[in-house]
């Protein structure tokens, strides 16, 4: 095109960033690499988002199973005294009373006869 070769043009070659070819190639590579990295970032986040719901569902199911198991055994682990678990005699007494584990209050009542 003729206007690309007109004599009036100002010589801006001193400001041309691609004069240093190697440095210019580095800049092109840097732009491409940064854009790629930026694109991969959200993809990783999307991956985490994708797995977060199944993960939460699995955790909820596990919690439900644990709670159900302890409920079937008649008391929560925290409500059950460690002494009773360690004492085989108390366990025998509770079994003999109806086949279900006792709570601390009932156990004390039996032991002290009150």
């Amino acid at each position, binding site marked *: 095109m003729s*206007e690309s070769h007109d004599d*009036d043009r100002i010589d801006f070659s*001193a*400001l041309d*960033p*691609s004069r240093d070819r190697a440095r210019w190639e580095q800049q092109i590579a840097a*732009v491409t690499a940064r854009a790629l990295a*930026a*694109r991969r970032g959200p993809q990783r986040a999307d991956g985490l988002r994708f797995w977060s719901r199944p993960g939460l569902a699995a955790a909820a199911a596990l919690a439900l199973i644990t709670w159900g198991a302890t409920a079937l055994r008649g008391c929560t682990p925290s409500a059950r005294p460690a002494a009773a678990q360690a004492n085989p005699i108390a366990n025998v007494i509770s079994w003999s009373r109806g086949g279900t584990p006792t709570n601390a209050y009932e156990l004390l009542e039996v032991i002290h006869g009150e």
Partner: protein
Amino acid sequence: MRALTDHATAALVRRAQHGDVSAFDPLARAFLRAAYAVALGVVARPTDAEDVAQEAFVVALEKIVSCREPARFAGWLLAIVRTRALNWVERRRLREVPRQAQSPDRAGELPTVERGQVRARLVAALAALSPLQREVVLLHDLEDWTHAEIAGALGMSELMSRQHLFQARRALRGWLAQHAPSEVES
């Protein structure tokens, strides 16, 4: 003239929009220099302009899906560059005001004196132009864009592009003639 036609540009942009990252490199090769030219017109420092151009280009590639008219990628990109360059100037102004207050002898310094007198003179001369004149003359004389391409990217008529170029060149020559190298050095 640009390295890519509007048609070829649109094809690359569509590929990038559909996740083909191999389109990034040819887009950067075709338009990073133009991004630099526009950034230089705003920030007036070649090294800063390189940083702004890169940063803006990365942002543009990141959100390329929002480029609604792939054939007009250049205009869309240059708008991003301009915005980021203006933000850069504002940040630099805030950063440098305290510094200049500490050393008032630097306040009258030319916009930049880096890497040789020719470069410094050109940058100082460009500072005498309006932002639009700088963009037009840099895109035309540095980047080799045609008036049609400049008009399309900057949203003006070809006639306006020619007028801006004419006025910019005249102002630049006037400035360069008035400021002989010895005066700039002193």
